[in-house]
């Protein structure tokens, strides 16, 4: 069994991330310099991972290549642009009901997927030299997540 990560973002401006960024500025989080969002999928797959990557990136349910960009690693999100420090926070619902997994397996025949975790990955950029992790957690708890049904993880 191999674990495989997939991040799916937008090629076009992401209105959700822009609205969240503007709201956070209104909430006086001036230290935040950038905010990006991606759909996060973590698969446990059996068999040839390269073949699976090709197949899964052509499934319109996860990726529409006309508007989405995707990658199979989080490394690109860790490196901040313009000398900024990035913090990546994954938000997930506590009760993941597995609807997407059953769609992929039962409707699209992805029998090789044994487990699927999904969520929203927020990448926050801060200037270096400040306690970025602390501010990122404040942002997460005050806007990005409702902890009555969601959880977060720094990755």
């Amino acid at each position, binding site marked *: 069994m191999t674990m495989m990560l997939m991040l799916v973002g937008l090629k076009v401006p992401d*209105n959700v991330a822009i*609205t969240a960024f503007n*709201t956070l500025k209104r909430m006086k989080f001036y230290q935040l310099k950038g905010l990006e969002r991606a759909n996060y999928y973590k698969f446990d797959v059996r068999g040839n991972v390269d073949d699976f990557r090709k197949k899964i990136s052509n499934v319109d349910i996860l990726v529409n290549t006309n508007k989405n960009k995707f990658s199979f690693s989080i490394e690109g999100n860790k490196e901040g642009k313009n000398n900024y420090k990035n913090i990546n926070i994954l938000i997930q*619902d506590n009760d993941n009901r597995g609807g997407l997994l059953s769609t992929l397996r039962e409707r699209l025949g992805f029998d090789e997927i044994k487990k699927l975790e999904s969520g929203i990955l927020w990448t926050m950029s801060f200037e270096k030299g400040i306690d970025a992790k602390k501010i990122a957690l404040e942002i997460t708890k005050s806007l990005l997540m*409702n902890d009555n*049904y*969601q959880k977060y993880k720094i990755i």
Partner: protein
Amino acid sequence: MQKIAVLYFPGNNCEEETRDRCIDVGMDAKIIRWNSKENLNSFDGYIIPGGFSYEDRVRAGIIAAKENIMGKVIEESRNGKPLLGICNGAQVLVETGMIPGLKNEVEMALAPNVNPLVSGYYDAWVYIKNINSNKCAFNNYYEKNEIIKVPVAHGEGRFMTKDKNLIKKLEKNKQIVFQYCDERGKVLNKFPINPNGAVHSIAAISNKEGNVMAMMPHPERASYNWQVSGSIIKNNERTNAIKIFESMKKYIEEKIK
């Protein structure tokens, strides 16, 4: 005459029906945009209508909850003025922490529906009943256990909380105002009677003082016979759903003016 501000955020779509129901029961209502400079102190009550404010970006209701106008509305409601959130408005009130409002934090969520038929948006006609003893600003014309037929239309309407003791506290404080039930008034915590999987079949909750209420169903869409699905009589006679607005008027007459 009682002056009501129906607050409009980009993406709302029920502001006109909501304003009309206020006018129908004899109040003076006006739609106020989120960026209006109008003095909100001059209004006697407030309603946040249904729809999809900010396209439900990030989470339903959260962006509107952080708008400056909400700060003013919260201040006015703390002085006892009535504030009703319907559907998306309920999501806004929960995300501000005003509902249930027992601590200075967000104690509940309106989480994505749990529904065996569809994921995401779901609409249907349901029954709710008044279980609260006329303590709240929006139910004082209802008999105890009176049943109302109303539509629900949402993707994130499941009242829930991480606090295992909260529901007991809400019951003790009589903050649970309406519960989903069958047409005879029996509360069964299963689909489709409970259309979204809400804990304790909750359809509406008030704050402890009773002047703020978040409700997921839409009374403004079920206030006349002609609006009600399956109604044999399609005339202009009022249904009991309009009592939500009549109750608000009565509360203002007795407590505010």
